């Protein structure tokens, strides 16, 4: 359905569909199918729908597997208020950039003695510098005026302190972008009162997880929020971050906005700005007009009707 959308809109992309269900490779290690990896290595850009990991599947989370395979170190979520989809917050326009490989999600935990558990948060110089550099590059390439590092260095002096130092160092090389630092709790406090004061936010894993979901909540939830994962070697995978919704799968009821906007992000990443703008505008206009909306947006239309309407608008623009 998505692909139909794109061909109708004449976007110059060739699609290669790949299944990424985990298989056991030689040596018994879980991995994604080699054809999938090879395809990604060649094309470098991917678009992904939600993946569900069955509980007790015996293998680690699918998303985790993808992240490790392609070293997807930056999770980028632009949060922009959608005109026509009302939330108590208007004029939100910010981007959260989350370090996605280490921090609190290193998965290193131990039971020290019975009843005492230790969970290790790992912060490295290399990963911190890499995410800081990505954040400033992103800010520069997307004409954003400031980058704010979010941290708790007053409490976690060494770990967040290291993260903060790297951000400061990288900021020196990007004098055209304003750099500020703010405590995580202050960001939360200010975000729910006045989100317009924030532009690009960069932070370690856990804070990024929390803040990116908080910001998604401001604009209407995961059903309308796009997301991109940037990896080493130029790999980038764009995805919607909502669940698989098995209860409505196959019934033409789903809201494709999140996936569509992620695809728009993908087009921008590939430099296809004009196409991106067309599809994005068509999508926003459709939502704003409120005539053809899926159920979760407050309407009664089917998924296919929604996308057909968007395609129609794109064609009208040409």
């Amino acid at each position, binding site marked *: 359905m998505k692909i139909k959308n794109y061909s109708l809109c004449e976007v110059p992309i060739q699609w290669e569909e790949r299944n990424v269900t985990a298989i056991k490779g030689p040596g018994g290690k879980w991995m994604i199918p080699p054809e999938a990896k090879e395809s990604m290595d060649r094309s470098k850009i991917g678009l992904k729908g939600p993946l569900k990991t069955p509980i007790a599947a015996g293998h680690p989370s699918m998303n985790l597997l993808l992240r490790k395979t392609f070293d997807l170190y930056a999770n980028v979520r632009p949060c922009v208020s959608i005109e026509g989809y009302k939330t108590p917050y208007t004029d939100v326009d910010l981007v959260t950039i989350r370090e996605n490989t280490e921090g609190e999600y290193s998965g290193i935990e131990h039971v020290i003695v019975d009843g*005492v558990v230790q969970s290790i*948060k790992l912060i490295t110089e290399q990963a911190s510098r890499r995410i800081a550099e990505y954040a400033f590059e992103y800010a520069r390439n997307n004409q954003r005026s400031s980058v704010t590092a979010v941290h708790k260095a007053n409490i976690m002096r*060494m770990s967040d*302190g290291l993260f903060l130092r790297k951000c400061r160092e990288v900021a020196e090389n990007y004098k055209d972008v304003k750099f500020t630092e703010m405590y995580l*709790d202050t960001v939360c406090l200010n975000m*729910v009162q006045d989100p317009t004061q924030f532009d690009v936010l960069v932070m370690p894993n856990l804070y990024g997880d929390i803040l990116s979901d908080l910001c998604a*909540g401001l604009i209407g939830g995961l059903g309308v929020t796009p997301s991109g994962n940037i990896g080493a070697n130029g790999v980038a995978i764009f995805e919607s971050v909502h669940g698989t919704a098995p209860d409505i799968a196959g019934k033409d009821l789903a809201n494709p906005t999140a996936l569509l906007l992620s695809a728009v992000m993908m087009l921008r990443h590939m430099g296809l700005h004009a196409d991106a703008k067309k599809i994005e505008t068509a999508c926003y206009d459709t939502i704003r007009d409120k005539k053809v909306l899926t159920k979760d947006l407050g309407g009664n239309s089917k998924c296919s009707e929604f996308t057909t309407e968007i395609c129609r608008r794109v064609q009208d623009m040409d």
Partner: protein
Amino acid sequence: RYGGRHTVTLIPGDGIGPELLNHVRELFRFSCVPLDFEVVNINSSITSEDDINNAITAIRRNGVALKGNLETNHTLPPSHKSRNNVLRYTGLDLYANVMRCQSLPGVQTRHKNIDIIIIRENTEGEYSSLEHESVPGVVESLKIITRNNSLRIADYAFQLAREKGRRRVTAVHKANIMKLADGLFLQCCREVASGYPDIAFDSMIVDNTTMQLVSKPHQFDVMVMPNLYGNVVSNVCAGLVGGPGLVPGANYGHNYAVFETATRNTGKSIAGRNIANPTAMLLASCLMLDHLKLHDYASMIRNAVFATMNESLLHTPDIGGQGTTSEMVQSVMRNIKSIIFRMLFII
């Protein structure tokens, strides 16, 4: 407690702390509250280890303290720990941080009628201050979760919920990722919940929690969580009801209690300008009076503050008003006077 008067330790702290606490003293004198303050002057610039220990001794002696926030200079080496934390748990074991976020009708916010109690484990978790550089460029920070402290805070939460007639407790966690640490916390909450069949129990992952708070906050009643998530959630909730100037906070242990503003801000940029919102600190002092069983004084001051906020609508700039701190305090005093007159006439 001695000669009919209580003694409470007062720690002015940095930023707006000193001026706000002066207003509290002024108000207490005006209202003839039978309470004396023992002032302990520690702040970020002059304090040494001995001063901190003296402060802890003073709090132990009096059992109760009212404090402003102490700024932490995080450019200093890691051995220089956050003073607020040292006071809180080293030796005082103030294990429960309790914050009630209640919408005030007179304050303009995007969401109305919020009334959430947040109970945050105050001594361990990510705030253990255990960090080391294992190899150059790689830092490890330890988050500690123990069965004892998790059971303790869960029990506190359910007891409080029962006492206040609340119907549901929600545990906030990230046990899908931190399977052992948050897993233990969650398990302890479940165990305690089974002993309180009159109170419903559910759990929610922290990132979803923040998303739900900004879109559908009314689904929450009482929330219990480990230290860091407590920090995040309490700041989100404070923002939802109008900001840091409005919400009081309390730290309870078995033997001691320390009261402060809920979001623990120093307010450096507005210090000394007479624009800080005294509401949070005044309401914190009322929580303290309740703790000392001086309920009549607590109610009187609290009602006077609410009257200023909701009827006279005298607001400071942080909530969109033009009033100064002193104007607000004067208004509260006027309201106290009329409350007393009304009481006298009834008698």
